[in-house]
C-alpha cells in the first residue's frame, strides 16, 4: 500500500516489542513498589539510579543502532527492562509520598537555652518537631521567627477578590511570630509535635528545663493532607480554589472536585498556598447556592468555601472498603460538607473576577464537551420518559449518578399490605438490581461503549463514502470528546487510547486488530499509570484491563476447545451446563463444598463418555448440531463471555467485592448485544434532536424505540436479580490469585508448555526425566500450596471479633478447634441511605477471613439492630444451626401480628407508630412475605425440613430456642470452650447475653440486654459466673424522653455495681450512628452514649476501653489462660 509505514518488518517488530517490554516492565516496577515499598530515606537514591539507568540504556541503544540494531536476547531485555522497572518504582513513590522537608537539627546541651535555627521560607509553613532523643528531665521549648502573613483582599460584599487572570488578591503583613510553648517529657523518643503557628522565617529555638535532647525540625508540606483534620473533629477552614471537575449531580446532593489554591487553616490567620491534593465538596439541595453548582457550568468556577475540612475514614475492619485509600488514589485528601446556617457568612460562593460579569470558565475544550453532553441530555429528557431516560443518560453519557436512587420499573407483586412497610423498599433500585444481575458494567462507560461508538461512526462514515484516512482523525476526536463527557475514567481512557491506536494503525500503518491490541493494552496502561500510578490496584483500572486481556488471550483457546463439541457430545455439554445452572438456582452453597464437585465431575464425565460413544453413530447429527454452527454469532459470544467470567469476573469480583454476580454469565449473552443497540440509538437520537426543525421527530421515534429496548434491559436485569443468587465468596489472597492466573497462563499456552516438558529429556540428557517430573510437580505445588495454606486449622486460640456495624451488634467467634459461630447480624436500613450492615461489614469480613460458613448463629434479641442483618447472614453464609430467643416461637408458629405486638410490648395497651413498625419489621424478618425472596428464619426452617407451623421450643433441630442450656461446647487441649446464655430472669424470653469461656478466661457479650438487666444478672447468677476479663456492654438504649439525670441514675444503680462485682480488665462498647435505627430519638441515644463513655473514662484507664465507632473492629483473644484485647485501628 502506497504511503503507509510498515511496522511488520524486522525493525518495526523490534520497535513494537521494545515498547511492549518497556510498558510491562514499568507496570512491574509499580507493582513491586506497591508490594514492597522502598524506605523513604532511599527515595533520592532511587531517583538518581533511575536517571543513571536511563542514561546508560540510551547510550547502549544509540551504540547498538550504529552497529546495525539491537538483537533480541537477554541483553535487550536487561537494557530496556531494568530502567523501566526503576522508572515504575520511582514514579510510584513520587506520587505516593508527601515529603516533609528537613529544616534543622538541634542538640540541646547543658547551659544554653537559645539555639539559632536560621531558616527562611518563601511561603507560610508549619513546623513539625521530631524528638530523636528525649531530655533527661521535663523541658519546654518555644520557636521564634517572623511571619509574612497573607490576608485576602475583600470587596464591599466581603467576598475575596480574584483577578481575571485567576490570581487571588492578598495583602501581606510582616510581624514577629512566636510559637506556643511545648513540653518535652523524658522517654518521649520518636514522638512528634506540630507547631500550629505559621512561620516564614525561623530564628531561635528556646529551651528551658531538661538537657540532652536531640530535636529534628521539619517543614510540613502545604498539602491538603496536612490540613485535613481526622474524621469527627470540627474546626472550619476557608478555602479559595477552583472547581476542576464536572460536578457529580445526584438527586439528593451534588459533589464537587475542588483544587484549592489557598487555605486559611485558622480563622483570622494567614492563608497558606496549597501545594497538592484536591478536596471533595458536598452540598445538599437546601443550600442557597445549590442551583449554581448542580450543573456542568460550575466546572471552572472560582470558589470560596468555609467549612470543616476532614480526612477520609480508614477502613474499620480487615477486608472492608478503605475510603481513605480509594480517595487518595484519586488525589482527594479532604472532604467538606458545606452547610449554610442562618446569619453566617456564605459557606460556598462562586467568586466573579473583578471587571467581569460571570465566573471564570474552565478549559474551553472540556467546557465545549460538557455543554454538548448537556444538550444531548436535554434531548434524551424530551424523547424518553423517566426512569428509562436515567438509564439511557448513564449508558450513553456516563451520567450514572443520576441513576443511583432510581426505582426499578417492576415493583414486587402481591406484597402483603400488613407487612408492606418493611418489604416495599427493599432491593428495588435499578442500580442494586444491575449489580446483582452482573450487568452494572454497562453503567460504567468502558471499552464496550467506546467500541460500540467507534463501530457506529465507522459504519456511518462508510455509508457516507468517506475514506478511512480522512475519517480516522475525526473519529479519534469524537472518541476524545466522548471520554471527556463521560468523566475520563480509566476504563474509558483505556478504551479511547486503544481504539485511537487501532484506528491509526488500521488507517496509516496497515496493521490488524490483534497487532493493535498487543501494542494498545500496554501503551494505554503505561499512559494512565504514568499520569496516576496509584490507579494500579483501583478496580476501574484492573477490571477494564482484565476484561480486555481476558478477551484477547482466553477467547481463542476457549473457542477452540468448545468447537470440538459436536452431536451428542454437544448435547452432553448442554445438559451438564443446565444441571450446573439449576444447582446455582437451588442452592449455590453447594459450590463451596468439594463433595458437590466430585459428584458433578462424575456426572459430567459419564455424560461426556456417553456423548463420545454416541456421536460416531450419528455422523449427520454431529455435522448439523455442533457448537461452531450456533446462529447469530452466539458461538463467539459464548466463548467471549466464558473468557470474561474466567479471566476477570470470577477472580477480580471476588477480590474487590467478595461477591460474584452469577447471573452475569447468563444475562450478558443478551445484555451486551442489547446495550449495543441502546447506546447507538441513544447517541443517534440525541445528535439528531439537536438539529433544529427537522431533527425532533426522528429523535422522538428513535427515542420511542429506545424506550422499548431500555425497558427490556431493565426488565431483564430485574428478572435476573430475582432469579439468581448474588453470593458472597471467600476473598482470594495474593498467592491464590497468582496460582489462579498461573493456571490460566498454562491453559492459554498449554501447547507450548506440553512441548517444553516433552522435549526436556532431549534437551537435558542427564537427569532430564527427573527434571520433567520435577517441573510437573512444581506446577502442581504452586496450585495446591496457596489453597491448602489458607484452609482453617485449629489454632488453640479462642477469638471474639466485635464488628463495627454502627448502631447494632454482630460478633464473629472462632473456637479453639477452628469452628465458627456468630452472634447477631447488625441493622439493615430500609430507607434513606439503605445501609445494610450485614452486607457492608459482616459478610465482607467473613469473606476476607474465609469464614463464610458458621456452625451456629445466635440471636441475642429480636430487635432489628440484631435481627435484620441476621436474615442476610442466613441467606449468604452457610449457617448450620440458628439459636433464637424463645419469644420467636409463637411468632413462627402463629404468625399473628397483633398477637405478636402484644407479646413484644406487654406493658403497652395502645401501640404507637414505632411499636407497630418494630413489630412489623421483626415479623418481616422472621416470617417474610409471600413473594419475598429474602432468606427469613421461616425459609431457613423450611429448607431444613422443619414445618414452621409445628415449631416447638423444646424440639431439637436446626432452630433452637435459647433457654438455660449451653449453646455450644467443645474440648480442646484439655480445656473447655463453652457458650452459655445469660438471661436476666426466667420469664425474660426476648433477650439474653452470653458468657464465652475458655480455660481460665471468660468474656461476657451482653449487647442484647438492657442496662437494668445487669442488676438482675447479679441477683440471678453466682458472682463467679459473671466474672470475666472482658465485657461487651449493652448497646446504649433507653426509654423515650429520658434526660441526663435518668441516665446517670441508671449508670449508678446498674452499671457501677455490675462493673464493681465483675471487675473486668477490658470493656468493649458497640456504637455508631443511631439515626437509621432510632430515627428522631437519635440525639437522646448519642447523649446516653456520651454519658456512658464519660462514666467509663472516669472508672477505667483509656487503653482498656474499646469502642467500635472509634477503634474499628475489636478482637478479644484467649489462649485459655491469658486474655487480650486489640483494636483493628491499633493493629494497623
Amino acid at each position, binding site marked *: 500500500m502506497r504511503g503507509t509505514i510498515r511496522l511488520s518488518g524486522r525493525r518495526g517488530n523490534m520497535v513494537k516489542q521494545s515498547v511492549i517490554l518497556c510498558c510491562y516492565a514499568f507496570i512491574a516496577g509499580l507493582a513491586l513498589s506497591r508490594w514492597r515499598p522502598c524506605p523513604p530515606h532511599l527515595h533520592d537514591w532511587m531517583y538518581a539510579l533511575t536517571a543513571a539507568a536511563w542514561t546508560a540504556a540510551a547510550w547502549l541503544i544509540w551504540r547498538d543502532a550504529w552497529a546495525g540494531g539491537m538483537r533480541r536476547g537477554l541483553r535487550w531485555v536487561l537494557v530496556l527492562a531494568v530502567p523501566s522497572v526503576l522508572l515504575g518504582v520511582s514514579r510510584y513513590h513520587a506520587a505516593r509520598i508527601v515529603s516533609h522537608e528537613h529544616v534543622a537539627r538541634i542538640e540541646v546541651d547543658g547551659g544554653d537555652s537559645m539555639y539559632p535555627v536560621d531558616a527562611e521560607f518563601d511561603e507560610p509553613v508549619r513546623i513539625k518537631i521530631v524528638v530523636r532523643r528525649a531530655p533527661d528531665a521535663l523541658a519546654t521549648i518555644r520557636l521564634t521567627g517572623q511571619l509574612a502573613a497573607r490576608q485576602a483582599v475583600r470587596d464591599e460584599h466581603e467576598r475575596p477578590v480574584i483577578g481575571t487572570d485567576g490570581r487571588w488578591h492578598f495583602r501581606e503583613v510582616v510581624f514577629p511570630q512566636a510559637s506556643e510553648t511545648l513540653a518535652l517529657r523524658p522517654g518521649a523518643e520518636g514522638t512528634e509535635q506540630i507547631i500550629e503557628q505559621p512561620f516564614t522565617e525561623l530564628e531561635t529555638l528556646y529551651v528551658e528545663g531538661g538537657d540532652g535532647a536531640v530535636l529534628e525540625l521539619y517543614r510540613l508540606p502545604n498539602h491538603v493532607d496536612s490540613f485535613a483534620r481526622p474524621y469527627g473533629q470540627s474546626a472550619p477552614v476557608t478555602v479559595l480554589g477552583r472547581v476542576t471537575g464536572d460536578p457529580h*449531580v445526584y*438527586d439528593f446532593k451534588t459533589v464537587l472536585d475542588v483544587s484549592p489554591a489557598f487555605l486559611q487553616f485558622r480563622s483570622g490567620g494567614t492563608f497558606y498556598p496549597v501545594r497538592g491534593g484536591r478536596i471533595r465538596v458536598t452540598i445538599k439541595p437546601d443550600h442557597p447556592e445549590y*442551583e449554581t453548582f*448542580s*450543573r*456542568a457550568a460550575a466546572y471552572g468556577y472560582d470558589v470560596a468555601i468555609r467549612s470543616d475540612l476532614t480526612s477520609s475514614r480508614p477502613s474499620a475492619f480487615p477486608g472492608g472498603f478503605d475510603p481513605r485509600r480509594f480517595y487518595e488514589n484519586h488525589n482527594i485528601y479532604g472532604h467538606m460538607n458545606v452547610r449554610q446556617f442562618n446569619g453566617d457568612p456564605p459557606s460556598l460562593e462562586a467568586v466573579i473576577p473583578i471587571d467581569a460579569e460571570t465566573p471564570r470558565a474552565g478549559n474551553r475544550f472540556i467546557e465545549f464537551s460538557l455543554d454538548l453532553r*448537556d*444538550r444531548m*441530555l*436535554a434531548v434524551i*429528557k*424530551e*424523547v*424518553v*420518559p*423517566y*426512569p428509562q*431516560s*436515567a438509564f439511557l*443518560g448513564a449508558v450513553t453519557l456516563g*451520567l450514572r449518578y*443520576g441513576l443511583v436512587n432510581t426505582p426499578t420499573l417492576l415493583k414486587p407483586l402481591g406484597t402483603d399490605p400488613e407487612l408492606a412497610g418493611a418489604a416495599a423498599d427493599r432491593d428495588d433500585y435499578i442500580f442494586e438490581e444491575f449489580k446483582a444481575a452482573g450487568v452494572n458494567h454497562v453503567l460504567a462507560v468502558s471499552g464496550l461503549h467506546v467500541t460500540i461508538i467507534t*463501530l*457506529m461512526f*465507522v*459504519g*456511518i462514515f*462508510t*455509508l457516507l463514502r468517506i475514506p*478511512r484516512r480522512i475519517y480516522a482523525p475525526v473519529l479519534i476526536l469524537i472518541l476524545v470528546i466522548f471520554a471527556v463527557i463521560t468523566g475520563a475514567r480509566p476504563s474509558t481512557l483505556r478504551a479511547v487510547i486503544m481504539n485511537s491506536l487501532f484506528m491509526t494503525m488500521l488507517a496509516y500503518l496497515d496493521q490488524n486488530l490483534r497487532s493493535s491490541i498487543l501494542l494498545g493494552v500496554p501503551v494505554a496502561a503505561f499512559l494512565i499509570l504514568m499520569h496516576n500510578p496509584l490507579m494500579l490496584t483501583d478496580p476501574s483500572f484492573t477490571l477494564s484491563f482484565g476484561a480486555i486481556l481476558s478477551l484477547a488471550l482466553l477467547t481463542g483457546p476457549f473457542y477452540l476447545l468448545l468447537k470440538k463439541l459436536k452431536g451428542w457430545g454437544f448435547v452432553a455439554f448442554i445438559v451438564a451446563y443446565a444441571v450446573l445452572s439449576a444447582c446455582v438456582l437451588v442452592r449455590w452453597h453447594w459450590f463451596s463444598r468439594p463433595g458437590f464437585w466430585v459428584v458433578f465431575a462424575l456426572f459430567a464425565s459419564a455424560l461426556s463418555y456417553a456423548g463420545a460413544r454416541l456421536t460416531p453413530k450419528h455422523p449427520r447429527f454431529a455435522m448439523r448440531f455442533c457448537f461452531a454452527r450456533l446462529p447469530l454469532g452466539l458461538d463467539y459470544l459464548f466463548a467471549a463471555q466464558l473468557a470474561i467470567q474466567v479471566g476477570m469476573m470470577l477472580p477480580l469480583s471476588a477480590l474487590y467485592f467478595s461477591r460474584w454476580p452469577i447471573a452475569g454469565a447468563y444475562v450478558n449473552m443478551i445484555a451486551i448485544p442489547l446495550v449495543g*443497540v441502546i447506546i*447507538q*440509538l441513544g447517541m*443517534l437520537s440525541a445528535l439528531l434532536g439537536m438539529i433544529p426543525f427537522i431533527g*425532533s*421527530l*426522528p429523535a*422522538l*421515534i*428513535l*427515542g*420511542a*424505540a*429506545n*424506550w*422499548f429496548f431500555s425497558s427490556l434491559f431493565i426488565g431483564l436485569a430485574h428478572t435476573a436479580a430475582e432469579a439468581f443468587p448474588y453470593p458472597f465468596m471467600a476473598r482470594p489472597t495474593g498467592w491464590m490469585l497468582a496460582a489462579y492466573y498461573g493456571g490460566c497462563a498454562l491453559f492459554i499456552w498449554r501447547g507450548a508448555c506440553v512441548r517444553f516438558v516433552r522435549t526436556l529429556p532431549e534437551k537435558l540428557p542427564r537427569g532430564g526425566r527427573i527434571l520433567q517430573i520435577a517441573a510437573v510437580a512444581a506446577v502442581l505445588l504452586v496450585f495446591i500450596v496457596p489453597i491448602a495454606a489458607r484452609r482453617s486449622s485449629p489454632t488453640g486460640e479462642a477469638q471474639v471479633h466485635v464488628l463495627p456495624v454502627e448502631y447494632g451488634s454482630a460478633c464473629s467467634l472462632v473456637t479453639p478447634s477452628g469452628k465458627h459461630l456468630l452472634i447477631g447480624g447488625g441493622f439493615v436500613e430500609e430507607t434513606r441511605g439503605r445501609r445494610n450492615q450485614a452486607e457492608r461489614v459482616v459478610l465482607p469480613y467473613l469473606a476476607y477471613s474465609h469464614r463464610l460458613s458458621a456452625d451456629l448463629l445466635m440471636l441475642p434479641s429480636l430487635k432489628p439492630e440484631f435481627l435484620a442483618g441476621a436474615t442476610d447472614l442466613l441467606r449468604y453464609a452457610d449457617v448450620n444451626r440458628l439459636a433464637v430467643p424463645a419469644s420467636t416461637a409463637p411468632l413462627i408458629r402463629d404468625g399473628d401480628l397483633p398477637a405478636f405486638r402484644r407479646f413484644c410490648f406487654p406493658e403497652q395497651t395502645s401501640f404507637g407508630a414505632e411499636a407497630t413498625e418494630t413489630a412489623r419489621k421483626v415479623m418481616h424478618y422472621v416470617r417474610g412475605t409471600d413473594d419475598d425472596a429474602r432468606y427469613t428464619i421461616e425459609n431457613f426452617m423450611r429448607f431444613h425440613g422443619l414445618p414452621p407451623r409445628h415449631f416447638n421450643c423444646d424440639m431439637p433441630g436446626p432452630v433452637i430456642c435459647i433457654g438455660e442450656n449451653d449453646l455450644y461446647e467443645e474440648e480442646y487441649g484439655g480445656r473447655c470452650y463453652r457458650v452459655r446464655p445469660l438471661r436476666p430472669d426466667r420469664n425474660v424470653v426476648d433477650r439474653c447475653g452470653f458468657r464465652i469461656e475458655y480455660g481460665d478466661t471468660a468474656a461476657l457479650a451482653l449487647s442484647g440486654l438492657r442496662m437494668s438487666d445487669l442488676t438482675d444478672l447479679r441477683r440471678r447468677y453466682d458472682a463467679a459466673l459473671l466474672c470475666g476479663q472482658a465485657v461487651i456492654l449493652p448497646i446504649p438504649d433507653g426509654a423515650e424522653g429520658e434526660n441526663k439525670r435518668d441516665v446517670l441514675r441508671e449508670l449508678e444503680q446498674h452499671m457501677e455495681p455490675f462493673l464493681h462485682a465483675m471487675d473486668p480488665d477490658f470493656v468493649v462498647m458497640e456504637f455508631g450512628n443511631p439515626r437509621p435505627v432510632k430515627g428522631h430519638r437519635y440525639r437522646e441515644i448519642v447523649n446516653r452514649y456520651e454519658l456512658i463513655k464519660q462514666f467509663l473514662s472516669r472508672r477505667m484507664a483509656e487503653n482498656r476501653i474499646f469502642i467500635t465507632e472509634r477503634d474499628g473492629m475489636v478482637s478479644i483473644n484467649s489462649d485459655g489462660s491469658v486474655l487480650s484485647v486489640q483494636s483493628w485501628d491499633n493493629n494497623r
Partner: protein
Amino acid sequence: METDRGARAVLIIVGLSLVIGGIVLMAHPLYRRTLSAWLKGEKEASPIRQTNARYYPAVGAAR
C-alpha cells in the same frame, strides 16, 4: 469488508428502530400525548418532559 458489514448493521438497527419506534409512538399513551403536544407547539406540556422534571433539573429540557 468488515466496515461494510458495520455500515449494514447500523442501517438495519436504524431501520428496525424506526419501525419499533413508530409502533411505540402509536401505542404508548405517553408518547401519543407527547406527539400531540409537540404538534400543537406546546413542548412544555409534553408528558415525557414532565416525568423527567426531577432528573437533572439543572439541564433544561428546552434549550
